[in-house]
Every structure is written in structure tokens, then in C-alpha cells.
């Protein structure tokens, strides 16, 4: 019986406390950052720039890891299962994607194929087959579209912060416009007839399209395909005929093939390029903007 004033007071206090706790927990849940899993270092950077402190980005593919050869671990599958949004590079880069979707429990639409939203793929010939070029991030125009895809995905998962995501995306797109102009001016320092790029694997076709280069790759679109000795010999002849001054290796690849080619042709080693993702956090290519600046500066300075 609730006749005792103390008892009534205790019950009332308990109810108030319970209500306060429930409100606090609900508020915390509503303000919890969006859990975003990224399958690419470039997408991780885009996510941070668009999401800010409203997202928690978990990188499955980290700097220095070859995305062509990455395979998710059981721990990665668990991360994906608990994510609100999973950012996928697409265009055939993640060969493990369907397995990851199945083993993580599918997904209520949380897998976002960013690459499908950046426009048509370049298609390249490799081993007598036509393959899709997955390296779309080397075009700033593509990345600007990717920013829009990420913004929309975050806004759908967290409508309350939609305005913040939109504002951040607009600001970041303005920075990308400035970066594009900066790159065009840097490239203009290099005579157009010298814009010939020999790289470890065929990852720079989008860059070549946007900035007027011609690419001579040692390997094909994927780093898994090794060049034959015939391919290397043909490339050496091409380098000599075209008068290419420098050959570039990549941060993930073994530079020995590049070194062997430079010995045969007299071309110098132009430097390291970042092809399949960003550099380590302490490198000069830790963000997308820094990576693009590093690549274009290395290329232009070596080919001048």
C-alpha cells in the first residue's frame, strides 16, 4: 500500500530517474556517429570530409594494402555486419564483394557502390579481353560525383544530419575544383609532346584522359597479372622509340621490374606514384588532395 509518504516519494523518484535515463540513452543513440565501413582509402578520406564528426570511419583496406588482392577476414565481416553504411569502390575492384555481402548478413541496402555513380567506365584491352578500369578516383570530376554519392548515402542513413553532410560536401567540392585547376596549371608546365607516362600497372587512364597524357603500363589493369618477358621487351622498344624520359613505380608494387626497364632504356626512375590508394598517415599522400598533388608534381618534374 502506498500510504507511507516515503514509499510514495521513492516510487516517484524512481520513475523520474528511469525517465531521465531513458531520455539520455535515446539522445545518445540519436547523436551516435554513423558507423561507416570503407573498402578503399580514397573513400575513407571522402567519408571523413563529408561526414566530419558525425561519422566513424572504419577502414578495411588500409594504406599500403593492394586492393586488387585484398581478402576480408572474419573480423572484417563482423565490422561490416555492424556498419550503418559500407562504401564500395566498385567497377569490379572488389572481387570479394558478393561473398562479403552474404557472410555479413546482406544488408538492408547499406552497401553503397560509389563507383557506379561516377559515370561510365573507361574500358581497356587486357589479354585480348575488354575490362573495366576500376581506378576512377584519378579523375577529379569522378571524385566530385563520388562526393555526391557519399553525401546522399549519409543523408539517407542519418536524415537529421543531412544539412550538415550537404554543407560539408559543397565545401569539399569547392576544394576539389581548386585542386583540379592547380593540377591543370602544373601539367601545363610540361610540353604536350612529353606527356608520356610509363607506370607499373595500368591505373592512370582516367588521369591521362583528363590531363592529356598517354599511358604505357608495364602490367595490366590489375596488379595480379604479371607481364611476360615479351610484354616487357615490347615496352622497352616503345620507351626507346617514344623517347620517354622517366619510368614510375608505385607504392604497392615491387620496383625491380621498373629498375630493370630503366637500365635497358636509359630512362630514369621518375619516382613513386600512388595508384591504388592513399599513402600512410605520415606520408605526403595521406589524403586524396595530397595524393593527387604528389602524383602530378612527381610526374611533371620527372618528365620536364
Amino acid at each position, binding site marked *: 500500500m502506498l500510504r507511507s509518504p516515503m514509499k510514495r516519494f521513492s516510487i516517484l523518484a524512481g520513475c523520474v530517474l528511469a525517465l531521465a535515463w531513458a531520455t539520455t540513452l535515446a539522445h545518445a543513440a540519436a547523436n551516435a556517429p554513423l558507423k561507416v565501413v570503407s573498402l578503399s582509402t580514397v573513400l575513407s578520406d571522402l567519408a571523413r570530409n563529408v561526414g566530419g564528426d558525425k561519422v566513424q570511419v572504419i577502414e578495411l583496406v588500409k594504406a599500403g594494402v593492394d586492393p586488387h588482392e585484398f581478402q576480408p577476414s572474419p573480423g572484417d565481416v563482423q565490422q561490416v555486419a555492424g556498419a550503418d553504411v559500407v562504401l564500395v569502390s566498385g567497377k569490379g575492384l572488389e572481387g570479394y564483394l558478393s561473398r562479403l555481402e552474404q557472410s555479413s548478413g546482406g544488408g538492408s541496402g547499406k552497401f553503397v557502390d560509389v563507383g557506379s555513380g561516377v559515370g561510365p567506365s573507361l574500358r581497356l584491352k587486357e589479354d585480348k579481353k575488354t575490362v573495366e578500369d576500376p581506378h576512377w578516383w584519378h579523375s577529379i570530376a569522378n571524385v566530385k560525383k563520388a562526393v555526391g554519392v557519399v553525401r546522399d548515402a549519409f543523408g539517407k542513413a542519418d536524415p537529421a544530419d543531412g544539412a550538415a553532410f550537404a554543407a560539408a560536401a559543397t565545401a569539399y567540392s569547392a576544394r576539389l575544383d581548386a585542386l583540379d585547376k592547380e593540377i591543370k596549371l602544373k601539367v*601545363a608546365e610540361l*610540353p*604536350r*609532346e612529353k606527356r608520356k607516362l610509363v607506370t607499373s600497372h595500368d591505373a592512370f587512364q582516367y588521369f591521362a584522359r583528363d590531363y592529356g597524357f598517354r599511358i604505357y603500363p608495364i602490367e595490366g589493369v590489375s596488379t595480379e597479372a604479371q607481364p611476360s618477358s615479351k610484354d616487357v621487351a615490347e615496352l622497352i622498344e616503345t620507351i626507346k622509340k617514344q623517347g620517354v624520359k622517366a619510368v614510375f613505380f608505385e607504392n604497392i608494387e615491387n620496383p625491380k621490374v621498373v629498375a630493370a626497364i630503366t637500365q*635497358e632504356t636509359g630512362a630514369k626512375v621518375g619516382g613513386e606514384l600512388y595508384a591504388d590508394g592513399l599513402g600512410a598517415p605520415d606520408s605526403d599522400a595521406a589524403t586524396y588532395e595530397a595524393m593527387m598533388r604528389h602524383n602530378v608534381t612527381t610526374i611533371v618534374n620527372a618528365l620536364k
Partner: protein
Amino acid sequence: MRGQPWLRLLFVVLIFAALSVPVWRLTHPAPIAAAATPVAAESTPAPTTISLEVEVTFAGPPPTSFQLKEPGQTILQSGDVSGETTARATWHAHLPKEGVDLTFEAHWPDDAEQTAARIRVSFPTGQTVEKTFWARGAMAEILTVPASPGESPSP
């Protein structure tokens, strides 16, 4: 023992001697510098040298400083403005089949209104390549001049 052991030995030595030459060639490639025949660089047509008239026209007050250049050479710069709003020069251009990128940079006072600059390159045939750029305060733009007007520069 039957047969002639020394003959058999001689036969084996001769076989190994005969095999040694191709094995040596397979395992010891010829030095590149001394033996390799250098491949002649592809005989691309020499860049066309042509005199082109270049004109920069400003829509409003001319900038406090400007420069129009190709890689390695300045074509027009501050101080070349004749009259108030136009600068002209003759550009002795080497035009490869890929074309040439001209870079134009200009600076106006920070409080200047938005303004425009037109870059025009005239070929001896009378054809022109031109572009107009808009900016406020500072401008940095590129105009690609093809080897022939009416052509798109090749990659």
C-alpha cells in the same frame, strides 16, 4: 672391359663442349651497352615553326600584372599593353602535333570588380583560336593551341 673407354670419354667431352656454347648464351646475356643496337627514336615529324599573332584583350582596367607563356618561354607580359586594354605580340611557335598549352596568369587589386580577358591566337590563314576567361582579383587559365586551327590537339 670391352670397347675403348678413352673413346667414350672423348665422345662425352665433345658433347659437353658442343652444349656449352648455347648454355653459355642462355645464362650470360650480352652486355646491353656494347652489343645492343640502339633503336632509332621514332621519326615523328619535326614540330611546325610558325609565326602567330597573339592578342590579349581586357574587358575593363588592365591587371596590375599579367603573363602569357608557353612551357619555357614568356610570350606577353605586363608592360606590353598598348593603349589601355590590349596587348599584342608575334609568337614564333613550334607546334608539335599534340599542340601547345598557353598559360595565362593575371592579378587585379583585391577590391576589383569581376572582369574578363580574351586570349586570341591568329594563324596566317586568318583562322583563330580564342577563349574568354572571367575572374575577380586573380586569374590563372590555360588555352590549348592545336598544330592546325580547326584540329583537336592529339593526346
